[in-house]
């Protein structure tokens, strides 16, 4: 059933059942991909525009592949955000694209709320592929999907008892927000830890537990989600040095050894090796213990995005 919301701008706007529907659809997509042929025709004859104002390799590629697997007529554009200094031209650009009659617009933008602004000027369904420090809904959906697949959870709507620990940059991370909302809506317990300077006010009001002590929370976690540190931005203001960050919030080998053996380690990528996570832990070379599922996340990006494109693309 196609979703009621015209656009997918964030997890915050989704109901629990809608999240479950995406995940169930993704599961079917994954099964369909496993059987040949790999090409489906859900979006046949429909135009999809990938509009990336901000550089991104993996998300863009993932959406492209998902759209192609669904037989969409795909166009990828990477306009330089710098040439669009006035909203008028952003509006102009969207109106021009609108004239081409796309069914879906996949938007990545450096400013929070920009996909919503675009959505107001187009009849196409806008899928947020990450906006500023706001949301990255498909990343959260693929993260939940990865957790469920790996831990063999089949009832997506019931993650009660699951302890999710989100670590690091809660202030600027769109992945953090979307994951916090998604896991909370599905009933999991979510704890956010990071340097106090990266814990913005109000996280508790979204149902998260909040703290600064990684070591205390780590042993109880079923999922440890490490967030990418934007080195250039953070080091200046939010903590004294990368070394200090790693000391308190890095998933080192020592910390890895203290995790639940069946726990999962996730990272939205790209990884700063040796900062958020020890290289050996990242690559799963430490042997035993908690599992790193970073590449599974990437792998699941395709069926999850296919599910999103198919569902939103089916709206009349």
């Amino acid at each position, binding site marked *: 059933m196609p979703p009621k919301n015209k656009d997918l701008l964030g997890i915050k706007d989704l109901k629990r059942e809608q999240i479950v529907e995406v995940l169930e659809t993704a599961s079917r997509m994954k099964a369909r991909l496993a059987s040949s042929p790999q090409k489906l025709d859900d979006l046949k004859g429909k135009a999809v525009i990938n509009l990336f104002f901000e550089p991104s390799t993996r998300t863009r590629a993932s959406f492209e592949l998902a759209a192609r697997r669904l037989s969409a007529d795909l166009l990828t554009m990477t306009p330089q955000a710098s040439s669009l200094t006035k909203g008028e031209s952003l509006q102009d650009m969207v109106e021009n694209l609108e004239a081409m009659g796309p069914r879906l617009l996949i938007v990545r933008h450096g400013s929070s*709320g920009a996909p919503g602004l675009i959505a107001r000027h187009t009849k196409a369904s806008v899928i947020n592929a990450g906006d500023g420090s706001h949301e990255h809904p498909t990343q959260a959906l693929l993260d939940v999907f990865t957790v469920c697949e790996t831990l063999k959870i089949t009832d997506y709507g019931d993650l009660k008892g699951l302890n999710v620990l989100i670590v690091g940059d809660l202030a600027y991370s769109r992945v953090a927000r979307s994951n916090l909302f998604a896991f909370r809506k599905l009933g999991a317990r979510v704890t956010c830890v990071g340097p106090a300077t990266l814990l913005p006010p*109000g996280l508790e009001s979204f149902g998260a537990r909040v703290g600064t002590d990684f070591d205390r929370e780590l042993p109880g976690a079923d999922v440890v989600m490490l967030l990418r540190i934007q080195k250039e931005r953070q080091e200046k203001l939010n903590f004294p040095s990368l070394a200090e960050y790693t000391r308190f919030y890095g998933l080192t080998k020592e910390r890895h050894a203290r995790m639940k053996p069946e726990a999962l380690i996730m990272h939205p990528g790209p990884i700063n090796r040796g900062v958020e996570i020890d290289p050996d832990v990242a690559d799963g070379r430490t042997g035993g213990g908690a599992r790193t599922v970073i590449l599974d996340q990437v792998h699941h990006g395709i069926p999850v995005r296919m599910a999103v494109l198919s569902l939103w693309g089916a709206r009349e």
Partner: protein
Amino acid sequence: MKILIKNGRVVDPAERRDGVFDVLCVDGKVAKVGKGLPAEGVDRMVDARGWVVAPGFIDLHTHLREPGYEYKEDLKSGTEAAAAGGFTTVLCMANTQPVNDNAVITEFIVRKAREVGVVRVVPVGAISKGLEGKTLADIGQMADAGIIGVSDDGRCVMDSALMRKALQYARGFNLLVISHAEDENLSGPGSINEGATATELGLPGSPNAAEEIIVARDIALAELTRARLHIAHLSTRGSLDLVRAAKKRGVAVTCEVTPHHLMLTDEAVRGYRTEASVRPPLRSAEDVAALRKGLKEGVVDAVATDHAPHASFEKEVEFVKAAHGLVGLETALPLCLRLVEDKVLRLPDVIRLLSAGPAKIAGFKGRGTLKPGSDADITVFDPGAKGKIDASRFRSKSRNTPFDGWPVRGRVHYTIVGGKVVYDEGHFNS
């Protein structure tokens, strides 16, 4: 020229008058307020039965945008908006292009406003040249040309030593110093209150402390220099507490609050509504409650609009790129009347905050009151008239308001400036 306003409810807080009277204006001045004044020899009669007759409203904080940004507003459209909102005098801020930091610009504004303006325009000069916060503007020469105060509004004078000099120097010319209180290092790009809403939306927030630090600093400097300090668009509970305490100590400090900070919280920004992007940002419900209490207790001296017109292309953009501010001249009275409905204020309080209060701060003698001998600056409005705020009908050139569609009460029927009816049931006579 004689005008007789008959049978209105005359509310003149400065004179503690509230009752049904006639008001007679002769040659630009209020001549008499009384019952059953004879209509003989009167050039114009206004029947104000069932309506309120109030001293003309004075806005301490308007951006008229001329010179330089006439596409947003100009002296004609801005003063028409003022008249339509019941304002008879507006103080216009210096952040024009070029900046009003010298007598040539001041003279231009004064002269042009006299030619095309519908209401009285009193410029506020810049504190620093180019609003750069580095060196003092030509404050004395601007005083000669007609400014009544100085402010770098839109920018904060971050250099405390320069702010001290500004207060000292302005005092020598008996000028008011208006503070845009914002520690710019702390507020950064934040045009939303720091809090859960900002976190959810992923927008950089500005904490209350960014304002309060400068309010505290400027109060300390006003104490040091014994100058007259006015805090513009005060928005937090903490700032109000600082002003309250300073007043108790006898510091010459006053403050204004805008209708939007009294009516909205940061929730209004949800959906990345750039119409609600203002500086200082809309605050929490707790702050709004404190500001309302401050109005009631008299700590807040005036309501000012911070009328900040912007073109739609400056607002219909990504939130962090959007121009800050909203238009306020035409919505101020109906929004303030909501405070009466909400039982926060009585009608005479609203009128005091829009007339006598600002007149006192600006040092306008014979304005903000209907006392005989005063300027015949009068607003006649129907406080009960139901309607909706309709931005498409604004006289301002700009439409940036978060209040479009709000059900409100209050309609201005006549605005009289210097004994002349300049706004007459929707028509202007400049």
